[in-house]
């Protein structure tokens, strides 16, 4: 008790030093929490968008499709696969796709692009394709000859909603397939390459012209719980058997996830340099505060205070400052994190940067906002780390002070 009292009085008798230490540590805590939250939040958003815009969380293909994406390696009995998928509770929704390429032609232009058949209603459950509509209408299950086209591709083809163009492609039976299509709607996903090279049609119509009934290249699924995706992937794989291959976004978007990790590492490097300096300064202040008291500590030792009690007293001081500053910084960081989760930071307000231009360069989704991720358990862990760092700053002074004998300490000038 008396040691606690002394620790508090010591802090109060050097108010300026305590306040500077406290503010530095509070600032670092807030910075740490906020930087992590922003990093996680924006990466998660980028990954989520990248996944949800089109690729989907999980996909089924023929096992041989990845190595040889030819029409010999398709999913040949969709009905059967779908049946089996329906028995799996962890799967929320699934949609069938047939992806191929076609040459889109108008009177003036011919441009190659992705030509994909989708089940319009199911597709809306597994991707943001429907939500990306910017003009005209999305596809329906009864559509024939209706094309849902990326805005950038439409611009290059110089077509708009209601215009007609034709496509040339190869059917699932390797026959030549061609027909006229009317542009029904235009979409913009903010993924430039995608908007610049894709068109979609209703699968029922597609099956007629391409002879692809009950056949698909992919089945896209969305799981009920994304955090359990690896387990779910394994379960689905087991249910579907060896012929088919089940993958989730961690595999299909491996590069993007790795890129985000690298970005995180760079963030930590900068943060690390900041922290080294901040904690050096906090450590220096702790060191000076202990050195100013060497005599006093010598006396305390002389009259019967044990070295571990001295250590305890110094640790209590560090703990008090630590708790206060981490609490303060934690509250500020949590508040900012919560705020910027609801009101993400807009890139345009940060610098004179055009996010679409930026994203185009790196072939990523153009995100105009950076949301933070408000995650209280994570914040608690981060606060605990900062508290430990605070305690670490008194380790050196404690080691030094315990090297003195009481007489040396009392005589210290």
């Amino acid at each position: 008790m008396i040691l606690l009292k002394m620790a508090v009085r010591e802090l109060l008798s050097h108010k300026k030093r305590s306040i500077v230490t406290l503010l530095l540590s509070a600032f670092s805590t807030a910075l740490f929490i906020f930087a992590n939250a922003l990093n996680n939040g924006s990466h998660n958003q980028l990954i989520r968008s990248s996944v949800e815009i089109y690729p989907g969380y999980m996909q089924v293909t023929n096992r041989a499709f990845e190595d040889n994406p030819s029409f010999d390696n398709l999913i040949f009995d969709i009905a059967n696969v779908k049946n089996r998928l329906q028995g799996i509770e962890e799967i929320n929704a699934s949609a069938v796709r047939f992806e191929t390429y076609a040459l889109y032609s108008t009177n003036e232009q011919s441009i190659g692009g992705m030509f994909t058949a989708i089940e319009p209603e199911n597709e809306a459950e597994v991707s943001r394709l429907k939500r990306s509509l910017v003009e005209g209408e999305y596809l329906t299950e009864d559509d024939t000859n209706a094309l849902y086209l990326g805005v950038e591709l439409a611009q290059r083809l110089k077509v708009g909603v209601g215009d007609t163009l034709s496509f040339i492609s190869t059917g699932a039976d390797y026959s030549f397939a061609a027909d006229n299509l009317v542009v029904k709607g235009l979409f913009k996903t903010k993924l430039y390459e995608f908007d610049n090279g894709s068109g979609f049609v209703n699968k029922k119509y597609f099956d007629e012209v391409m002879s692809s009934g009950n056949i698909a290249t992919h089945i896209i699924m969305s799981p009920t719980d994304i955090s359990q995706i690896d387990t779910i992937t394994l379960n689905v794989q087991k249910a579907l058997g060896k012929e088919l291959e089940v993958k989730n976004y961690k595999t299909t978007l491996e590069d993007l996830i790795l890129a985000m990790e690298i970005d995180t590492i760079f963030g930590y490097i900068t943060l690390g340099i900041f922290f080294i300096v901040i904690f050096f300064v906090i450590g220096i202040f702790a060191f000076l505060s202990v050195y100013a008291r060497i005599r006093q500590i010598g006396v305390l030792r002389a009259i019967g205070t044990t070295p571990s009690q001295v250590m305890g007293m110094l640790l209590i001081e560090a703990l008090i400052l630590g708790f206060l500053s981490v609490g303060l910084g934690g509250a500020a960081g949590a508040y900012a994190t919560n705020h910027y989760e609801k009101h993400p930071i807009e890139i345009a307000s940060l610098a004179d940067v055009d996010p679409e231009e930026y994203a185009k360069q790196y072939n990523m989704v153009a995100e105009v906002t950076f949301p933070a991720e408000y995650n209280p358990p994570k914040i608690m862990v981060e606060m605990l780390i900062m508290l430990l760092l605070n305690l670490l700053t008194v380790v050196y002074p404690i080691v030094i002070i315990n090297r003195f004998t009481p007489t040396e300490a009392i005589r210290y000038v």
Partner: protein
Amino acid sequence: MFNSTERLYLKMALLHIVRRKGRAALISVMIAISLIGLLLMEGMYEGMMVQITQNSIKTGSGTVSIQDKEFRSDNNIKYFIAKPQKITEILDAQEGIQSYVIRLSQRGLIATAGYSQGVNVTGIDLENEALHSQLKNFIIKGEYRFGKRQRGALIGYRLAKKLKVDIGKKVIVTMQDTHNEVVSVALKIEGILKTNNMAIDSNGLLMDIGRLRTLTGIEGATEIAVLLNEQDDDTAVKRSIMSKLDDPKITVYTYKELYPSLHEGEAMMQTYSRISSAFIFIVATLGIFGVVLVSVLERVREFGIMMAIGTQFRDIARLIIYESLVITMSGYIAGALIGGGMLWYFKQYGLDLSGLSDAFAIFGMDSSIHAILKIEYFTSAFLSVLVATLAATVIPIRTLKKRNPIQSISENT
């Protein structure tokens, strides 16, 4: 350089530092470590930015690029440069030019047996290109050649991976000619390129320019890419060429105009570095301040005695400043030597991160990062340390003056 009293002060400063070596060491180490961190951060980040820019400039547009005015917004082959000779004559006479190449690009569709996708077809002259962009060095598989009767092609490694094609395999490239007719050509893959320029790696196919001219029926070029001796001459050279050219249809772009995101990225990185170092030095100033204040206050009597025997207060102030400078500058020197040494090493040998090369490639970087080493880093850090030190001594010196050292001798302590 120092007179005898100054030498004496310097000696006193040194002796006092030795007496309190623990705290002096803390400050020196703090400055050294933060300087190492800052130098590495600046040098490596700038190295990355330069690398990304260089990768885009070298194998892409060059430092300046000459094109038809409409070509950039609408990548249509009909916007071609009909008489490149007229421009090359100007370029041959222009000063400051390292090399230039004439290229012809058209978008098309690339197909293998079962898979096809959009592609950027660029016609080049192998020999010129080898001299200009060292394209030959980017071959990771196969040969740098177009083979018999120019029937071969070079292809980006990501595109090759996606198409599952390898050396010796054939691809069919379909595109539009100048009369809007669809033309196809079969090309044998002779070489696979890894340039870390995403436009080539993910989407690029390179073929002989003569063959592409025959195919498309265009005798000219779509772009003349120019590399300058000095990258910063871009605007001046642009102006000079524009005035000599005097053709309203043709325009010259600098790399900053072509890749605005790169330029913005560089500017953002610089601002980021500046804010970081300002922050670090402000925090460091606090640490220096704490140590100087304590070391001044514990010597009030000592200073009093010095004044009693005839030392002027400004000499005492000088002594304090010397002492602080010796401590911080030794940190600066250590940090500059170690940090500079590390940067020099990374400049010579690069920081090898080949394990992450695919992810780096997304950002347009090579797997080995070569640092930049600029004198400016050291001079600006030197000034920062100097300013931080002087700023940190202001309050302690004032406090000392208020304490009136000469009177403190007679006071009983």
